[in-house]
Each structure stands twice: as structure tokens, then as C-alpha cells.
């Protein structure tokens, strides 16, 4: 029984990593949004599963939040925005997709090494989970770093945060998980609103196209 639990949880977590890689791979805006929605779905299932095996009902709330907010509302909102603001449908990358993928592999490997070394004592479920979570986090960060579009960066951040939720839920019996996920949802809402409010079309770097080069932290 336990083995089965383990396999399913393991599979879900692994699937999350795989989807993160796919996010890195995506170069069309809508494709990106779809993959992210999937990402959220998988996350919520894994969270729910964790709630089931840990017998922690409050995790279902987290799962619900993840599902509703990240799998439905935000992708839709972003899609609207892309349409409304006429954002390029293609994603401009700093590093080409290929190298990014390689880098991602490297990151996954790194997180495996780090975590498996670190959690030699912890129970295997937690180990794998943490390792996967760390790789999701790193991949999310990598995405934020290597993508130029605001939207893709937002998505990068959200996938990063998915990793966090994964870790939090994977940590057996961790208190405050719900509160934390709520807090993060607020954070994400802020970001999305910010993107929407400040008409951030292309980049994070400036809140307005007009101000793109006028201001880089200090008047020249």
C-alpha cells in the first residue's frame, strides 16, 4: 500500500518537473498558458493526494485554491490580457531553447544531488518530493531569468511557487500550509494585477513602454 502511495505521489511530482521543462520549451504564448494550467492541475492533484495519504483534510483547501486560481482564473485572465494588450504571441528568449533545456537538466541534476545528499535520514517519500520540488523551483527561476516577456516571467514565478507548494505539502504534517498558500495566492494576484494595471506589455523592466529607456534606476 505504502509503495503504491509512494509511486503515485512520486509520479505526480515527477510530472510536475516534466511540465516545468515543457514550460521552458514552449515558445508560443498560448501554448505556455495551457501548459501552465496543466501544471496547476497536476499540482492540485498531487496536493490532494498528499492530503489523502497524510490524512490532512486542510490540504484539500490548498488543492482547491491551486485548481481554481491557477488552473482557471489566472490563465484565463492572462489570455484576455494577451489579447487585449496585443502582446506578441511569440516568446523572446535570452538564451535559445536548446541551451535553456540543457541548463534545466543541469538544475534538475543539481537539485537531486543536493536533496538526496541532504535528506539521507528523512523518509523516502519526503526525499523524492523535496528533490522534485527544488527542481521545480529552480526551473521556475530559470524561466524568469531566461524569458523576456512579462507574461512568461509571471508564469515562471508561478511555477516556482507551485514548487514551493509541492514542497510544503510534501513536508508531512507541516502546519500553516494553507495560510502560506493563501498568502502566495495574494502575492500572485498582486503580480497579475500589476502586470495588468501598469500595462506591462513586453518586459518586467519598465512599467511603461514610454519609460523603457528613460529610467534605469537613476537619471543619467
Amino acid at each position, binding site marked *: 500500500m505504502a509503495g503504491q502511495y509512494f509511486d503515485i505521489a512520486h509520479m505526480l511530482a515527477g510530472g510536475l518537473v516534466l511540465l516545468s521543462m515543457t514550460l521552458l520549451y514552449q515558445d508560443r504564448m498560448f501554448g505556455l498558458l495551457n501548459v501552465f494550467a496543466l501544471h496547476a492541475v497536476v499540482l492540485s492533484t498531487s496536493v490532494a493526494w498528499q492530503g489523502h495519504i497524510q490524512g490532512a483534510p486542510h490540504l484539500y483547501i490548498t488543492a482547491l485554491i491551486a485548481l481554481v486560481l491557477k488552473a482557471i482564473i489566472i490563465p484565463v485572465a492572462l489570455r484576455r490580457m494577451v489579447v487585449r494588450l496585443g502582446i506578441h504571441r511569440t516568446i523572446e528568449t*535570452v538564451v535559445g531553447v536548446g541551451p535553456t533545456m540543457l541548463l534545466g537538466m543541469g*538544475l534538475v541534476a*543539481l*537539485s537531486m*544531488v*543536493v536533496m538526496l*545528499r*541532504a535528506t539521507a535520514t528523512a523518509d523516502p517519500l519526503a526525499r523524492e518530493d523535496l528533490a522534485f520540488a527544488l527542481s521545480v523551483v*529552480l526551473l521556475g*527561476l*530559470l524561466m*524568469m*531569468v531566461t524569458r*523576456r516577456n512579462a507574461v512568461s*516571467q509571471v508564469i515562471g514565478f508561478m511555477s516556482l511557487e507551485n514548487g514551493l507548494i509541492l514542497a510544503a505539502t510534501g513536508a508531512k504534517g507541516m502546519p500553516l500550509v494553507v495560510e502560506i498558500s493563501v498568502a502566495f495566492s495574494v502575492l500572485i494576484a498582486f503580480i497579475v494585477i500589476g502586470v495588468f494595471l501598469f500595462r506591462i506589455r513586453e*518586459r*518586467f*523592466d519598465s512599467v511603461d513602454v514610454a519609460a523603457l529607456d528613460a529610467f*534605469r*534606476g*537613476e537619471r*543619467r
Partner: protein
Amino acid sequence: MPASGDRPLRPRVEGKGLMPVAVALWGVVALFTAALLAVAAHRARTASLLVYLICLTVCLTILGVAGVQLVTGAGAAPTVQLPIGLPWIGARFRMDALSAFFLVVTNLGGAGASLFAIGYGRHEKAPGRVLPFYPVFLGAMNLVVLADDAFSFLVAWEFMSLSSWALVMAHHRDPDNRSAGYIYIVMASFGTLTLLLAFGLLSGGGGDYAFADIRTATQALPGLVLILVLIGTGSKAGLVPLHVWLPLAHPAAPSHVSALMSGVMTKVAVYGFVRIVFDLVGSPVWWWSILVIGVAGITCVMGVLSALMQHDLKRLLAYHTVENIGIIFIGLGLALAFSAHDMRAPAALALTAALFHVFNHCLFKSLLFFGAGAVLNATGERDMEHLGGLIHRMPLTAFTFLTGCIAISALPPLNGFVSEWLTFQAILLSPALPSWGLKIIVPAVGAMLALSAALAAACFVKAFGVTFLGRPRTPAAAQAHEVDRASLAAMFAFALICLLAGVLPGLCIDALAPVTRSLVGTAMPAQTALPWLSIVPIAESRSSYNGLLVFVFIALSTLLTVEIIHRFASRAVRRGPAWDCGYPDPSPATQYTADSFAQPIRRVFGEVVFRASDHVDMPAPGDARPARLTVTIRDLIWEAFYAPIAAFVGVAGERFNRLQFLTIRQYLSLVFVALVGLLLVVSIWP
């Protein structure tokens, strides 16, 4: 770190002999109060008079107390511990022989400056920027000398720099003053930080910053300590190549402050060196002295040569401070060398020479700066090329200034000569030193000392001759007026003390005996016991000098000659136009200027030291425009040491500054890189 509980930190007042240091501390308190008073009421007309009067009285009081302490030489000076400063140590103050001597120097200079300022300060345009800081400056210098733990010492030391910086910035509208102040404060805090490192070594990280603990502790790397201390105190005293701020900052301040900075503050720096190297570190090693003596010799020559190139009177004086600091450090270096080889008597001689020169230089340098201030006050000019003939308009100032010139040129019978003579005697004893490095370097430094003495004479012939003699070069100089009584009183007092110290050196040397005894274990033979008040460093068979007798000789023979000639020959005088080989020129522009006076020496030494070059632009025949001579002088030390640093900081600032203009994504990548890097470290950590 000892917990603050285990030592009660209430002021210790038990034990006898506390009176002097207590009085000194109260004096400092009074000075600080005067500063507050000045802040409150610097606009009042009488504020200046009041503040300077307070300073004068306080200085005189401390002077008296310290003098008594020095002469009556109370052996073990007790420590006053106040519950301020570092909590588990408290602020400790102590007045042993060394402190007493330097207190005498400090407050003598302070009293003179205050007296001078009573008159001079009246003409201050921005009293609000001078009055509050002047007493603080005095108080801080006193505290440095009194401090008996590292923290209080450094606080007072840096506070001294800070207050003097404020005084340098007094006339802040002049951009030169601003840059001078900037360079000064940066150099000062550089020095303080090196001293801080030195104390870090001395106290050994345990937090035992009290001098008493440091003395008893065994020091790691005393050599490093010496180097750090040499840098730290040298940057304040003005050792080459750390002297660059000095000729900028000293002239920038109001003249009575310049006098304090040159005459007293540099001495406080010397005190720091002596206190740490001779008292706290102890047991010197021979190579230290090579370092010190070498630097000192170079400082001497560089200082006086640079002084010769100046035509700004106050800057010239400032450069001479550098030279005299060099002389003092030669003495200190010799003392180190001798005591490194446990040659007590010569060490005492060298140390006495150095300390005596400290005293003398305080006197005549203050005197000269007073004179410069008086000239500045009377003519509004610091540039000698615009002066001349002042001896007619301000004879008294001229007389005192002349006295100062003779004294600083080390000419008998004044005091400057005595201390240099003692230094020479110390050098003559040094062949006995076993180490070969010293055998080579000491005579060379002796030559440098002699050279700088001769050059100093030349420089002051120039200074006095161009400023006071000849014909006035500008209307300002022609309409100069004698200065007020207070200033004159200060100048005459110092001139008199110069003379006394010159003709009665024995007294001063004996007064220094307790200091040398406490530092190198012995003192020079008692001088006042000798017949005719002459001084004998080691033995009469070796050498002796009698300033009094020489003075009397010269005075008598002068009077005698005058008397005889006026009586038996003619005393008739006829005034006429100058002869000047037959074609006198009415224009005062034909006189020798400061630059032209220095030209021969510039040709001899300048090419090497300053890359000095004269370029004559001679118009073609028939061309009406005047011929022009342009002299270019380069400050190689600045170019070698400071310009590169400035350039480096500039470039580095530029490079780093790019980080201000990155995009958020790039900043994120910084975070990302940091994270991945650290994770890698953790993953490969054993």
C-alpha cells in the same frame, strides 16, 4: 570580553597625586563648555573675546599643572577611570612624565594661539565657523595626551582631526579650502584606521584596551605594529609620503589655527608614536630604526626643498613643519636604534634631542604662523610676491618673525640650534652601533640633516627677505599697519621663550630627564649642575655647548664695537637714493622675487626632485610683448602614490556603477547565479 559587572566603573578619586590629571580633565570640560557657549552666542560681539579668554586661562592652568608635574616628577602617576567610553574599560586618563611634557607643549602652544587670537579673531569674517570648534580642538588634543586606554586615545585622536577639519572648512567658499579639507579628513581617518589595526594587534582581540593591560600583554608581530603606527602617526605628523594633506590644510585654516595645527597637532602625533612604540610595545628591534630614520631623513630634505619652491608664506611654513617632523623622527629613530642595542645613555641623548626639538618647533613654528597671520591680517596677502618692505610698516612683527626665522634655521644662540646640535651629537655616537645597515644609513641621514638645516636657512632668508625687506610690491603691502597688542604680546612672548630655551637649554634638558628615564631607562647627565650653565651630552671631553655664553659674547662684542666706533670714529649718517651699481630702478618689480631667489637652488636640486624646468619665452627683436619665464614644478610624490589611487577608485566606481542600470531580469539572474553557486558549494561540501 570582561563582563561590565566585574569592575565598578565609578570615577576613582582615591589615592594621592590625582590632582593634576583631575585639573586637566576639568580644563577640558571647561573647553567643551566654551564650545557650547560659542555655538549659542557666536553672533555676540564679545563672544570671540570671551571664548579665547577662556581657552587662554584653561591652557595656562593645565600648562602650570603639567609643568609642576613634570618638574616635581611624581613617579607612579595614578589613573582616573571615568564610567564613559568603552563600558567594560571606562575612559582612563593618566598624567605620567611623557603626558606631562606633551601637555606642556600642547598648552603652551594653545595659550599662545589663544592670546594671539584674542586680537586676530576679531577680524574673523565667519566667527560661527571658528569659535565653536577652536576650544573643542584644544580639548581633543589635551585628551589624546591624557588618554590611558586605546579607545579613549583613538576617540580623542579622531575627534581632534574632526574638529580641525571643521576649522579648515571655516572659509569654505574657497574651493581650494574645500578640497584641502577633503584630502585632510580622508588622510586623517586613514591614519586612524591604521592605528586602530595597530591597537587591534596590541590588545589581542580580547578587548583589553587599557594601556596598562597592553603593556603587560605579550604582543604578536611587534614589527607590524611599528609599521602600522609609523603610518598612522606619520600621516598625522606629515612624514613623507603621507604629508600631502599638510601643506594644503594647515594654510587653509585661520592663522591661529594653522599655528595650532603645525605647532601642536603634529606634536600630538609625535606623542602617539612615542607612547606606542617606546612605552606600549617596548623592546625595539634594530631594523625598526632603519625604517624610521630612513623615512625621517627623506622627510627632512623633501620638506625643506618643497618649502623653497613655495611663494605662499603659510604654505612655506607648513612645508617646514614637514621638515622639522623629519628632524624629530631622526632623533626618535636614533633613540630606537640605541635602545635596541641597549645603549642607554645615547638613547637618552637622542630621545632628549627629539623631544627638545618638539618643544622648540612648537614655539617657533607657532611664532612664525602668528607672524604670517599678522601679515595676512595687515595686507590681506599670503603670497610673498605681493609683499615686501613690511619691516618699515610693522617693525615689531618683523622683529619677532626674524627671531622665529633664526630659531628655525638652527642658528645659535636660539633654541632651534640646540636641539639640532644634540641630534648631531647623537649621530656622532652611532658608529658604536653594531648593525651594518645603521652604519651605512646614519651618516647619510646626518648629511641629509645638515643639508636640510642649510637649506632651511636659505629658505628663511627668502621668506623674511622677500616679505619684510626690500620695497613693497603692492599697494596693500605699502599700506600695511602694525597688528594689535594681543597678537604682538603673543609673538613677543614666544620670541622670548625661544631665546630663553636657546640660552638656558640645560633647564629644558633636565626637565626632560624623567621622561627619558621612564622610556629608555636612563637620562642625560644633570645639566644645571654644570658650571656656567653649559650643556654636556655625554662628557665634557667629547662636546659641550653654552648658549648663554655665546649669546653674551655676541651681544657684548656687538655693543663694544658699536660703542667704540660711534665714540672714536664717526656716527654721521646721510640718507640718499640707493646706489645699485649706478643705475637704480624706481620700480619695485625689479627686486628679486621669491621664485627668482629660489632659482639657483631650483637649478641645483629641483631638476631631480621636482622635474622643475624654467622655460623662457623671449619675443623676437622688435616684438613689443614682454618676455615671459614660466617655471613648472611637478609633485612626484602625488603622481607616484596618490594619483593612481584616485584613478583606481574612479575606474572601479565607474565599473561597479554599471550594476545600477541593469534590468530586473538581470538582477534576478544575479540572484539565480548566487543560488546555484551556493547550492553547488553545498553539494560538493565534504
